[in-house]
């Protein structure tokens, strides 16, 4: 069997506003659009992945928050309605998706053998979190690829950014190893925003773009710095600066997704492509792609 590989890694933020603005059939609320810069960014990412051959999407979302280790969905067929508890007015999405339980378990087992606290989620009543759904929908609205859904262990709240990163570096390595052994081609999604300070009021309608902007100049500077580091292949520096970034930009990468992604790609020095940047109720969001499939065989 040929070795499996990560064909692309993406920073794929999940504000429900993007699905809301896209008006897919699965989502109940109806909008007049909005956040086009980001939605066009996702369009460019989809175009970029169009001819890439892959089997599975592996996603880590900060909205399945677990405190007792890292969890993996272990139920093959998941269908229900996902309602965002924070923006239920925007996101009530009827999903019907397939989990690659085999790969999920392989990553779980590999991480466990490395000493990590991990658990399979096998309750059929479990509802898939909206972060996972939004990121997957924006990347692959056809929903024709199975996914692996990984929870966000809140080790940062429990310990520190350093401990969170240590764990996510290990999870990344375990993910890469399990993928390699599976023989599958995977697209990895780190489902998070960059700076993450929200407005606490909402416009009417929510898609009124005349009111959308970054919450502060400092947040903008941090977002641009992170994007520049990604574009210039300085992954290690992102990891080094993560403590300051998380603290000063209240960054959503505190959930570990970005560190996990960078680690799974072996902390690449290759540049990432920026497909789009925009703010969503004040938070900073970038859509980035590391086109691993073009990097050649190691």
């Amino acid at each position, binding site marked *: 069997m040929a070795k499996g590989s990560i064909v692309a890694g993406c920073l794929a933020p999940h504000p429900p506003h993007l699905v809301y603005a896209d008006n897919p059939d699965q989502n109940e609320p109806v909008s007049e659009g909005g956040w086009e810069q980001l939605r066009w960014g996702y369009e460019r990412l989809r175009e970029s992945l169009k001819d890439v051959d892959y089997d599975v999407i592996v996603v880590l979302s900060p909205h399945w928050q*677990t405190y007792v*280790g890292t969890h993996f969905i272990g139920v093959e067929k998941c269908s229900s309605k996902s309602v965002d508890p*924070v923006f239920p007015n925007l996101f009530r999405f009827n999903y019907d998706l397939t989990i690659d339980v085999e790969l999920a378990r392989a990553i779980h087992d590999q991480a466990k053998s490395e000493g990590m*606290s991990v658990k399979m989620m096998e*309750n059929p*009543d479990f*509802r898939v979190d909206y972060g996972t759904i939004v990121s997957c929908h924006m990347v692959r609205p056809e929903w024709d690829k199975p996914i692996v859904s990984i929870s966000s262990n809140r080790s940062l709240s429990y310990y520190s950014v350093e401990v969170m990163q240590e764990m996510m570096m290990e999870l990344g390595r375990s993910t890469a190893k399990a993928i390699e052994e599976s023989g599958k081609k995977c697209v990895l999604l780190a489902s998070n925003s960059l700076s993450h300070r*929200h407005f606490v*009021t909402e416009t009417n309608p929510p898609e009124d773009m005349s009111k959308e902007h970054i919450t502060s100049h400092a947040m903008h500077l941090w977002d641009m710095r992170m994007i520049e580091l990604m574009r210039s292949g300085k992954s290690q520096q992102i990891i080094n600066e993560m403590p300051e970034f998380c603290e000063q930009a209240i960054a959503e990468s505190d959930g570990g997704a970005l560190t996990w992604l960078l680690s799974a790609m072996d902390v690449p020095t290759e540049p990432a492509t920026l497909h789009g940047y925009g703010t969503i109720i004040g938070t900073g969001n970038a859509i980035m792609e590391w086109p691993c499939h073009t990097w050649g065989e190691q």
Partner: protein
Amino acid sequence: MMSGEIIKSLIVPPHPHPVLCPDKNEGWQRIRDAYDEARRQIEESDADLIIIYSTLWPSVIGHQIQADPNPEWVMVDADFHDLGSIHYSLKIDTDFAHAWNKANISRGLESRTVAYDGFPVDVGSVVALELLNPNNRIPAVICSTNVYSNRAETTVLAKSCMDVIKQQGKKAVAVSVMSLSNRMFTEAIEPHEDRIHSLKDDEWNQKILEFLSEGRLEDIGQLSRTIHDQIRVKKVVAFKPMWWLSAMNDNRNDLTGKVLAYEPIHGAGAAVVVLDPQSNGTGDKEYDEDDVDFYGGDRNVLDSSEDETESSPLDSGPALYDPVEGKNAVNTSKAPKPVGAYPHARREGDLIYLSGVGPRQPGDNSIPGGPIKDKAGNPLNYDIKAQTRAVVDNIARILEEAGSSLDNVIDVTSFLVDMDRDFSGYNEVWAETLGKVGPTRTTLAIRALPTPIAVEMKVIAKV
């Protein structure tokens, strides 16, 4: 006016273990038994509403209040999904939910109701209602915890809730769903291995429970940030539920408290505590922090072009004057500045004539009980009793400056801008204060006063 009140307050833990597997651990069973005891106490009372403030429902756009009459779904815990699912079908008092939402907005809070099929009611609310109110014997209302809210905002949230309880004459049970120390084990454990995560967490929990068993709820509120720093994983920014629960109880320290159980659940401190409003006869309240009635914080962040300076209720009102130092004038810095060229009072012989006195506070010009309208002239909800009390306090300060006191007041003319709404509240405070002195009194309804206040008094006293 009907008289609503909080007849009982509860602190209960959010984890699903007491619902799904109490038999697996003796401590979890004791939490379950304590939940059952709290349920019996509610059933034996004349409670007609359960109000849940859940730390497990975070919100960003202000506070959210559940307003679906019958939220129904299957709840699975994010961590403890292997324990099973909880099917819930709740009965919500939607009238109350909408009224609370309105009251929030009129006290300056960002707030909205949610009513959507499939809305994921949080595990804390589901567990608490499942155990305290099986079969939906009485209706409930559920409110989120805003991730950015501070003490002032959380206090005002409780006050607007109390406004509605009083308006609707509810006998309500206030429930904070929360852990004490909230640090769980980060690895799977066997049920028999459960214990409080650390000795430090346990010691702090014991201290919290000692305070609560003495009915010292406001003291716990005041210690909130310290407790959060010491034993809380930073999930919702601070130990907010104690701010809310204390404000729901008029920030008292003399409640009657009883700890029904305290046990570990996967390392976190789980306790069932009942607080009754009867005074235990001890402990007076002591404020280290301001009492707030109206939220004027940093909410208006969407429009960056707007001037960001804080607005006082008088920004659009009349200019203020230093009191005129005329013949026989009596003036004091302890009373609010006049809105025209006149003194606070004037002595003629052994009589003191006071200029009209309102509730405005000297110094910051704030209005206890809140202003009656905002800058744009939109009516706001306000507390007439707080305003009336502030008027009497201002009168007392002016009389003291004149070498007299409230006891020497002989005649009062009162002006109310809304007689229908406010007479009974005003009258109640009158009876507790000047009513005991016994001056003659005349009360008039008038169209407006120069500042956004609802009550003013004109006083004549003896020296």
